[in-house]
């Protein structure tokens, strides 16, 4: 899957995959990147914190089938749109019920206003 992503995007894994322009992601919101692009088992949520920083987590909430990209991003956390489970943007750690399992973080870089994703790499 990774190879297909590289072909699709024309980047090697050392450069990351260019997945969005920074301006595509409003502060406090997120967008989902299709797993066909990232080559991962789950879609990846690109999440922009209220301080402007960008983070990436597996998109599906570990509690029920909801997209974290549709969640509320604020002060270092994303809140699931369905039942308000909260996950730390930096490391995916779950903070309180109803979710009980953490989600997977991925490394992101912003270069020249473009967002590059490194699926499977730790931030």
């Amino acid at each position: 899957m990774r190879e297909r992503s590289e072909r699709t995007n024309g980047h090697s894994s050392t450069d990351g995959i260019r997945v969005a322009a920074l301006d595509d992601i409003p502060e406090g919101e997120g967008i989902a990147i299709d797993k066909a692009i990232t080559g991962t088992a789950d879609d990846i949520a690109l999440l922009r914190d209220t301080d402007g920083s960008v983070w990436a987590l597996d998109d599906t909430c570990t509690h029920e089938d909801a997209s974290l990209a549709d969640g509320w991003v604020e002060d270092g956390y994303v809140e699931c749109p369905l039942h308000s489970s909260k996950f730390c943007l930096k490391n995916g750690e779950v903070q309180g019920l109803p979710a009980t399992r953490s989600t997977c973080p991925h490394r992101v870089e912003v270069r020249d206003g473009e967002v590059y994703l490194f699926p499977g790499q730790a931030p």
Partner: protein
Amino acid sequence: MRVVVVGGGVAGVSTVAALRAGGFDGDLTLVDAGEFPYDRPPLSKDYLAGSKDLEQIALQRPHWYDEQGVRLLTRTTVTALRTPDGGIELGDGTLLPADRVVLATGGGAARPPIPGAVGDRVHVLRTAEDADRLRAVLVPGARILVVGAGLIGAEAASTAVDLGCEVVLADPVAMPLAAALGEDLAAWLHGLHARRGITTLRAGIASFAETGDGVEASFAGGVEASFAGGVEPRTSDAAALGAVARAERLRAFDAVVLGVGMTPQTALAEAAGLDVDGGVLVDAGQVTSNPAVLAVGDGARTRRGPRVEHWEAAQHDGARAAATILGTPAPEPPAPWFWTDRHGRHVEVVGHMDAADQIIVRGSFEDPSFSVFGLRDGLVVAAAAVDDSTAVRAARRMIDRRIPADPARLSDPSVNVRVLLRG
């Protein structure tokens, strides 16, 4: 210090988690009567439908208790409080010492004193065992009467119709949840049932009677019927009652589900001489009339207000109880919040809609998603949303932070609701 928490619902598990998160390093025990602590909201939805099993609705993963240094006693009942001298007494006679006991005993499903309401075909829905028993009868074509159209009853009715049952939903209240949602949204939400083919009756139940092939219900008082299949709602009159009586399929059922609320389990507290009045009475720090005993969740009630039965309220109770035990400031509770999932729609409510003096509708009830805001003196006091959780999260912050709202912008779906937080 030794703390024992009695009851493994969301209040009990949240208490334990908040104690450890707050740095409690003492002896910590959680006593639960069930197989293991599990989450209750899915019992009327995914679990009842059979799409999730008990492990999938566990409140914590099995190894979490070890990681947190929590001694978990399952399938264990508590028979008496001996605090502050001896802690608690378990069903097998063991005395478990404790310096503080937290009662998180929750409630039991209410069984109203309706004649015939204790038969094998009459179900309640509070525990996984209840859901297992009910699921066995929710087969395609089964005739199911659901009594009570609040949260549990409405969700059970939705699940039953999903499973192919023929469902009748009866409630004496014209618009269930009207206080929480406002009348228009409550009417819309209740109307979903009829649109899914459920026959809704405005009626109470006078009695149940077992017959050869089912249970027969006698409806009390004037019945208002809104029949599935395009027949318009009828007003309350003898003709409507007659229509019900004539339709035999509306009278004999394979099973009845009572979704008529819960009764707080206060027997332990009462036997120990604690103050109890519609719940174990607690102060703002969840402390009961015995300083060594705290109470949280559905079974507890503050002296200031009514008992609250919502999932998140139980979680906040646990956080407050933990703060009391730790001697740290209690977290400020945010505006109350709850959700219901039915007929494929996700509905969330925050705040107190019945306190509003102005109602703002954002979008239209015909839209895939929409929301309703309740304002009082220009401030948001409540919001209810259908498939629009962002509006509810924004509203919650507007309520908690007392951010003034501009009704014109609030009602305009093209204005990003997050922007409204900036005032």
